[in-house]
Structures are given as structure tokens and as C-alpha cells.
């Protein structure tokens, strides 16, 4: 365990800021999917690199928490290492790579393959919290559209995708309707992970530091990925299994192995992949 740096308050943020964030989170949990504006602080990491997620984690982390940080599903990517080290320095809490052991998981772009359980909290780093932003640039306008639940614009986009490509051409950050009311961005997770949000026993928190918004999906909340009746939502599938663990139902990363363009497909969730291999070694 890394020694905590006593020069900083536990969790880096001062207690008043944490309270402000937790008030925001309570509101977010009370109105699932609604983007709550908050007084995002300037963090010692760059905007766009997880400042929203870091602030949320900092506001709720306690001494008994066990923290896991992943980026692209892996614990050992540089940004995940950096954020994990940051929290180790400013809280001294235990960290883990094992999904099942974690009480708090901060993530960028993935939801772990191992099913989450009650009591676990996921914190998502969100670059752009507004699912309508690419369709409508003005925040004043999009806030109105949410207020009046006018999401025709998003359906127009899905219609247009099917008309042009025969498919909805959104493969990640696939828009969802939370609790039948608010259109929300699931953060840039692949749509493969969208079903894991629906009625999950874990609490899902979303933080966008640069855009100064936070939102939440409370446990067991209905999360619907938008679709048409005759073009239902479907997730990515591969014609391969993981080259390392042989798993056929996990999200795969493609790795180019040589100049001739040979490829290898491996689990993006490094903890899951390792666990599968350990299991096989045990059986062998």
C-alpha cells in the first residue's frame, strides 16, 4: 500500500467541496439520468483525462474502500496507473485489480466483464455528458429539449443512420433512455457494455469535469438503448475468441502483431482475462 501524503486532505479535495459534490450526487440519484451542473474544481490532472471521475471518486471514497481504476478495461494502461497512484497518494486506501474485490471502480470507456453486485459503485469518466451535443451545439437549447423530453432529434439521427447504412452507425457512447425519462450518454463505452447498465445492482455515477456536469443511474434502474422495433439494439460480436484465455463472450481488443498486418484478438478487460487463464491453469 502506498503511504498517504499528509500535506493534502484525505482525497485531495477539501471537505466543503466534497459536500458540494455529494449534494450534487444525491440530486443526481434522485433524478436518474439528469445532468446536474456542479462547481467542478481544477484538478492536478488535465481536463479530458478524468477530472470529473476523479472528483466524484474523491468525494465518496472512504478509508475502508478498495479502489480499482481501469482505462480501456485494463488496470495497467498509463492513465489508469496515474489515477490509481494519485488516489493512493492522497488517500492511502487499498487498491486492487480484481473487480470482485473492489468497492469503488473508476473507469474510462469500459464496464468490467465480471458482473457487478450490490454495494459496488462505478464511477465513469465522461468527456461529453450531453448525448444531443453533436446534433445541437447550444447548451441552452439542449437543456430545453431535456426539460420538455423532446428527443425527436436523436431519433432523426438513428433513422438517418439506418437509411444510409442499414444500421445505427453508433458503436460507442450509444444513447440511452434512463428510467423512461432522460436521454443520457453512457460515456464512451462500446455499445457492447450498454446492457450491463440496465437494472444493474451497482450504483453508476458519471462525472464530466470540464463540462461541469454529473449524473447517476441508481441500482436497478431501467436503462434502454434507443432503437426501432424492426431494428432492435444489438451488441458487437466477434468471429474470434480471446487469443489468451479463449473467452468467447468478452469484448476484444485487436492487436496488430507484425508489419504484414497479422492480428490478434484479446480481452480488453485485463482482470477478466487473467482470471479466466488462472481458472484454466487450475483445471489443467
Amino acid at each position, binding site marked *: 500500500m502506498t503511504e498517504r501524503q499528509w500535506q493534502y486532505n484525505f482525497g485531495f479535495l477539501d471537505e466543503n467541496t466534497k459536500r458540494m459534490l455529494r449534494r450534487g450526487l444525491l440530486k443526481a440519484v434522485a433524478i436518474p439520468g439528469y445532468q446536474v451542473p456542479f462547481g467542478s*474544481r481544477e484538478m492536478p490532472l488535465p481536463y479530458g483525462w478524468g477530472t470529473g471521475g476523479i472528483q466524484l471518486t474523491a468525494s465518496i471514497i472512504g478509508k475502508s474502500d478498495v479502489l480499482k481504476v481501469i482505462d480501456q478495461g485494463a488496470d495497467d494502461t498509463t492513465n489508469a496507473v496515474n489515477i490509481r497512484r494519485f488516489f493512493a497518494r492522497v488517500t492511502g486506501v487499498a487498491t486492487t485489480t480484481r473487480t470482485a474485490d473492489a468497492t469503488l471502480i473508476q473507469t474510462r470507456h469500459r464496464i468490467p466483464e465480471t458482473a457487478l453486485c450490490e454495494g459496488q459503485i462505478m464511477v465513469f469518466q465522461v468527456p461529453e455528458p450531453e448525448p444531443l451535443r453533436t446534433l445541437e451545439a*447550444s447548451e441552452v437549447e439542449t437543456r430545453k429539449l431535456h426539460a420538455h423530453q423532446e428527443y425527436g432529434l436523436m431519433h432523426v439521427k438513428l433513422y438517418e443512420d439506418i437509411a444510409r447504412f442499414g444500421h445505427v452507425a453508433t*458503436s460507442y457512447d450509444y444513447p440511452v433512455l434512463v428510467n423512461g425519462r432522460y436521454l443520457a450518454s453512457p460515456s464512451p463505452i462500446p455499445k457492447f457494455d450498454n446492457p450491463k447498465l440496465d437494472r444493474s445492482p451497482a450504483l453508476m455515477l458519471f462525472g464530466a469535469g470540464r463540462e461541469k456536469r454529473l449524473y447517476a443511474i441508481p441500482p436497478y434502474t431501467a436503462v434502454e438503448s434507443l432503437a426501432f422495433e424492426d431494428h432492435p439494439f444489438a451488441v458487437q460480436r466477434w468471429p474470434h475468441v480471446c487469443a489468451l484465455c479463449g473467452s468467447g463472450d468478452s469484448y476484444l481488443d485487436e492487436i496488430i502483431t507484425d508489419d504484414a498486418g497479422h492480428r490478434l484478438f484479446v480481452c480488453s478487460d485485463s482482470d477478466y482475462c487473467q482470471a479466466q487463464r488462472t481458472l484454466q491453469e487450475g483445471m489443467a
Partner: protein
Amino acid sequence: MYVAVKGGEQAIARSWDLLAASRRGDPRLLELELAQIREQMRLAVARVMLEGSLYDENLAALALKQAAGDAVEAIFLLRAFRTTLPRLATSLPLDTGAMRVRRRISGTFKDVPGGQILGPTADYTQRLLDFSLAQSGAEADCAEDHDPLPHPLPNVLDTLAREGLIEAETIPVGDPEPPDLTRSPLMFPASRPARLQNLARADEGWLLGLAYATQRGYAESHPFAGEIRMGEVGVSVCPPELGFEIDIGAITLTECQMINQFAGSKTAPPQFTRGYGLSFGEAERKAMAMALVDRSLRAEELGEDQLAPTQQQEFVLYHSDNVEASGFVQHLKLPHYVDFQAELALIRTLRQQAADLSQQETRHD
């Protein structure tokens, strides 16, 4: 063979070492001292203090040293430090009218009460590289003390205001507390205090470009530099438990008051309007750009068309912060394997479908 992305921790530690070595440069040369940066790079220090929203010349110099002279990185460092500081007190409103002026010029009148005071400026130099500066050790001539400047120096625009020719600067009803953008999110429509705060912290290059665009026709503002003044202004606080004012020091400020095209209606006779810019230190370019952009953002309030991007609050204010912008632009360096994989899978599916379709069509032919 697949190489796992393990060893992240070690790689990061190594990159820190390399960064430190690059910062230091040739170790045979003397290391920069903060006092040298503070005294001899004062304009860089001023920019870092202003956009970092913290008036501390030593910390700004440290940030510049740590950032190897990269202003935006230094601003980021200062901001991240600032956010941890407790708020001890709020200063009373600054009175730039009481400024100890070192420079004051007006572009609207040939002479003004108190005169045109050039002060320390590069405006009237010939921009020839001064090779005498290439050798260190040359003593600078000490400026001779002239007659003391009149103090306080009246503001040029006050003369126009007395005649009613320019809009009055009135305290809004109830004198509401201005928002603090470092504590509460920017919301729209943004009030003028919120806008000015954002513009003061805004990236100088962004403001300069926008201001230039307003002059070239992307907004209609027809500005005149009514007055630009630079000098020292006292800062005081009044702790509620004491109930009297305490002078806590002085800071260098540059203030720009632009006079712009007049507005009027059936009920109000035409008047010139104002654009306002204020910056820490000697930062005229920034203060003037800010004043132009402030004025163009007042389009709605003054009943003007809002056709140019420089008149659209969300466009100007959401994209002005260089710490936000720099972070988000550069976050593209982070791994995006997962999303890219999703896009790859999609584009392969779509291409496969297109190929199948054209094959079918060939068969039908």
C-alpha cells in the same frame, strides 16, 4: 507476438526523469532563479498570473520554470495549486480611478486632463533585434525621475459620461454578489459579471483572434480606445469581525475602456456604449482584446443582431479557457482502443454489406 502493456508504472517514472532532465537543459549552465524570471520575464509572469487567476509573482515564476516556459502548462499548474487554497477573505472592489498610474493613453482625444503618459511600452520602439542584449552584464540606464504624475488621474470616459454621451456604469439593482466561476459552473445566459470573469481568465490568443474578427466584420462594434491605463491599485479587505478596512497591498493592473458605436431607441437618445477589459500586470493586448469581445457579447442586451460567432455567448465563453481546451484537445493521446475497435467492427460490417450487395447486383445483371 503480443506484448502486454504491463510495466506502466515504471515507464511513467522514467518519463518523469526525462522530463526533469529536459527542463534543466545543459547542466554546465547556471540554473534559472525564480527572481530572474519574476524580474526579467515579467510579461510572461503576468500572463500566467492572470489566466491562472492567482496574483503571486513568485508562484507564477515557479510555474513558468517548472513548465519550461510553456505558458499554458504554467497556467494549468498555478490553477491546480490555487484550487487547494482556502478563501481567507474577499477583497473590496478595486478602484482603478485611484490607480498609481504609470501609463495612460487615450485614442479618442489629442490631449486629456493629466496628459498622455507613455510609460514603459514597446509601442514606439523599432522592432530591431537589440544585439546589445545578447551580452549579459550591460547596465540598463536608470530612468530619471520626472515630475510626479498627477494623482488620482481622472478617467477620460468620465468626461463623456458627465455629458450623457456614453452609457452610465450603474450598479445593478440590489448590487448582487458576482458569481465565482471557479466555484460554480458557467450557466447560460451568462450575466455580464460572469462573462467578464470568464474573459479575464480566457486564453489570450483566443481573445485576440476573436477581437480581431470583430474588427474585420464578424460583429459590428466600431471601437475607439477611450482610455488604457496601467499602474498599481491598492487592495483592501474588510473582515466582518473587525469591521474596518485593511490595506493588504497593491497589484499591477491594466484597464481598457473601449468606446463603441452608439445605441438608442425611441425612448432613449443615442449614446456611446462601453466595452471593458482588465488584466493583471502589463497586459495591454489582452485587456484591449477583452474589451472588444466584451462589447460584442453585449449584442443581445443592446438589441443588436447576433449573427457572428463573436456575439454568441456559448461559442465564445465555452471555448475560452486554455486549461480546458488544452486538456480536451490533448486527451486524444489517451488510449481509445476500445472505441476504435467498435468503429472498426462497424465499418467492416458496413463494407461487407456493401460488397455483398454489389455482388448480388452483378449476378442479376
